[in-house]
């Protein structure tokens, strides 16, 4: 099992993802954004950061990187693709996932550990039981998920909402539990097929007890485990 972590100019969480994957006992390698050959990888990760400085719009330039055509082909063939934070933004810009990520509702960057509820979903990436609450940091300026009403209906009906922001006990408040104002408290979604998964939180930051705690370890391990199953 080998994870390929794409390195765009301006990515800055790629080394943390590789560290997390290796910490969990899997192989990982970097894929340069200019590469057009991604064979040899069983799963692709688009990491967090500020690809191309997030100039114009988050992910708007990165989607034109040469490697993205290959990533799209890989995803269309059913290969597991996950986008974390900036990676999620790139996936929406590349139309591998619906909707968009706007500026946080408070117009401030937010770096904070939040509660997330795992939803019943079609996501092939996660084998945690629905209702599980995990504590994982978010770290973004543009995490305010939005889509049109029809798309939202489709996401709900198709089990494409994978993660929602919630209160520590798993409930959701009426005014919304998303610190960034995301529609329907959406923190992570997948495509219809379930093999492409985008999320704003950073599970790779909480797999090591020394730094940040272990709450994300189970989460990331579940991702890794499913990726192995899907890939094989």
């Amino acid at each position, binding site marked *: 099992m080998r994870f390929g972590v794409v390195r765009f100019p301006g990515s800055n969480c790629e080394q943390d993802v590789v560290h997390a994957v290796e910490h969990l006992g899997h192989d990982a390698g970097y894929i340069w954004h200019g590469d057009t050959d991604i064979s040899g990888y069983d799963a692709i990760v688009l990491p*967090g950061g*500020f690809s191309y400085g997030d100039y114009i719009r988050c992910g708007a330039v990165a989607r034109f990187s040469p490697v993205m055509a290959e990533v799209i082909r890989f995803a269309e063939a059913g290969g597991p693709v996950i986008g974390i934070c900036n990676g999620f933004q790139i996936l929406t810009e590349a139309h591998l996932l619906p909707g968009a990520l706007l500026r946080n509702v408070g117009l401030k*960057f937010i770096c904070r550990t939040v509660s997330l509820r795992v939803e019943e979903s079609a996501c092939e990436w996660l084998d945690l039981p629905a209702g599980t609450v995990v504590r994982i940091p978010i770290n973004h300026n543009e995490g305010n998920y939005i889509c049109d009403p029809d798309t939202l209906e489709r996401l709900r009906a198709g089990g494409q909402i994978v993660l929602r922001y919630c209160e520590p006990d798993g409930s959701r408040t009426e005014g919304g539990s998303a610190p960034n104002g995301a529609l329907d408290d959406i923190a992570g979604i997948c495509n219809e097929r379930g093999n492409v998964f985008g999320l704003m939180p950073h599970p790779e930051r909480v797999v090591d007890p020394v730094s940040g705690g272990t709450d994300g370890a189970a989460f990331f391990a579940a991702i890794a485990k499913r990726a192995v199953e899907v890939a094989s």
Partner: protein
Amino acid sequence: MTLETLSTELAPKLAVELGLKLDEYEKVVTILGRVPSVTELYMYSLMWSEHCSYKHSRKALRMFPTSGEAVLQGPGENAGVIRVGDGWAVAFKMESHNHPSAIEPYQGAATGVGGIIRDIFTMGARPIASLNSLRFGTLDKPRQRYLFEGAVAGIGGYGNCLGVPTVGGEVYFEEAYEGNCLINAMSIGLMREENLTRAVGSGPGNLVLLIGSTTGRDGIGGASTLASQEFDEKAEDKRPSVQVGDPFEEKLLIEACLELLDESLLVALGDCGAAGLTSSISEMASRGGVGVDIDAAAVPQREDAMKAFEIMVSESQERMVAVVTPEKLEAAMAICDKWGLRSTVIGTITDTERFVVRMGEEVVADMPAATLAHDAPLYDPAMERPAYLDELQAFDPMTLEHPETREALSAMLLDLLASPNICSRHWIWEQYDHQVMVNTVVVPGCDAAVLRVGDTGRGEVSGRGIAVSSDCNGRYCYLDPYAGAQIAFAEAARNVACSGGRAAAITDCLNFGNPEKPEVYWTFHESVRGLSDACTAFGVPVISGNVSFYNESFGSPIYPTPTVGLVGLLDHVEQHCTMAFKRDGDAVVLLGRTRNELGGSEYLKVAHGMVAGRPPKVDLVDERLLDELLVTAIRTGIVRSAHDCSEGGLAVALAECCIAGGRGATIDPPGGLPGVAALFSESQGRVVVTVAADHFDALKTLAATHATPCVKIGMVGGDRLRMGGLADVSLDEMRAAYEPTLERLVHGAETLQSEELGEG
């Protein structure tokens, strides 16, 4: 073609306009043996500005101890470097960006971060953490809210994009900083010892390679017109002198430069900071004892018709200067190209020891290279103890009326917790990515940040750690600069010790008013003397630093603010400590002695609106013993929490431990003192620790061997902080006072502004 010099009438006038004094101009003429050209005059005026030459401070700075067993590189390079064990080393430095930020807070703060980070990776280190030390006026003023919000956004905007975590810092709001905010940025980098790189140009025939951004007219004269003069009503006109940052370009520079160094493709590397190409190239040349021949026309320009002098002194950001051998040029440029960075040969190293600048064929400057960096005149400014000190120091806070009842003292505790100088800083640090690189072990909000020594980018993670803190209470320094500087050091060391770190070395950022005023210079000299004595007493060297003078506006200086950035070491990073109360039933222990010391305290300011009296006494021998005791007690696992007493005294320290741990405590406060002093005295050398009840004796024994007073004062538990007849407040009340202050001040202010607009 001969060099075109200025006319003898014009040259001295231009020199003065550029910030040189007439006798300094004469010295330039003597060095050159003729009248300078316009390019030469610009270059000298920048390099001999206070900001670049330290001409008013250099002699005083010789007091600092700068050597030590762990020191790999002391002051004089882009940053200092110490060994941390197992072949690892850390580079660190703090620097001010006060004046640009006072004009344009977002870009001023952002480029401050960018500049100090370049100093770090120039040394061959990967930047792994940033801290900042900020001072503003009070937030009831709209301009101060604008500066505060803008500076925080700028620090976050730049650091977050780079993927370097911002892990700590400090902020105070005082009237004294209203016309001149302070933005001090500290960066820490990690390297293997063998990767240490110095900015020493050598090898005649080698090439000078400019990497990164194009050069424009931004920041021209920033070091001389902004950083080395007082502010007046024309400050707004200086906005064009503020540089604009591009963190994406800097991120690429970090990766490219570290790759170039890893591949051993460079002879030397330097960054373009203040005074741009002039300073980086002249410093490299003078360190290496060589000359350089630069073609300014070869420098990629982003504006039309730039003159040679503009190109040579532009402070356009995100540029690096490297020296490469001709054989390795192609490989070096290929790496720059891979990262999408422009790289251009702009000159060669020569054996003439002269700094020659051409514009194509035309020679526009020809100077002895070392004179730019080293021959600035050094001054011994006049000193005079300020007249205000006697009156202020003679003030006795006990002559005031103080709250005495439990109700009044409890209310005062809540007022202090809500004070902008004490309240939670989460509104600030949640705007900073403080976790990227996954080495942050203790996040902001505790006494010190703790980081694992590791570079996940290289797949190398060790079990070692560093603890970092930056500190300075400007009020204490105003009331007694010698003691105040020592307290700044002692508090930084105590914060690091509370986290389990042994103080290893410091950097400093010395922020003062106009050194040409004898009273200001006296406060500077006293602060340097105090800091030197503290360092010597602890055996801790100063390995880098920065002096920022002329922090005045409309003729009145800021509080003397010698900020200390201290790095401590942990052999095993998991053996660290935080301030949160951990378990009900644990004994609460006070290490150190409480005296009636309310001079310069936050209580005096909040309750009486006064900054007066003598700051608390500091005993460096006691402080060092206390720190050693803490490090041992934390390493051996005796203590479960540790938090030092600083602004707001024992009561605020206890409240912070309660809030962080979500638990109350029942405390028997120190006796023999008036209630306000027992609760809010800011006596130094005190730390609140908790131990499992059956570990108290072990702590007591350890404390006795460190000659440190150790008294059990209570027990953790419940949901209230009860301090006998002096205070009784609930966790919810404390949280409500402590947590939302900054957000309320900034957000409430926005509401107010829109109301004002509505009425208008």
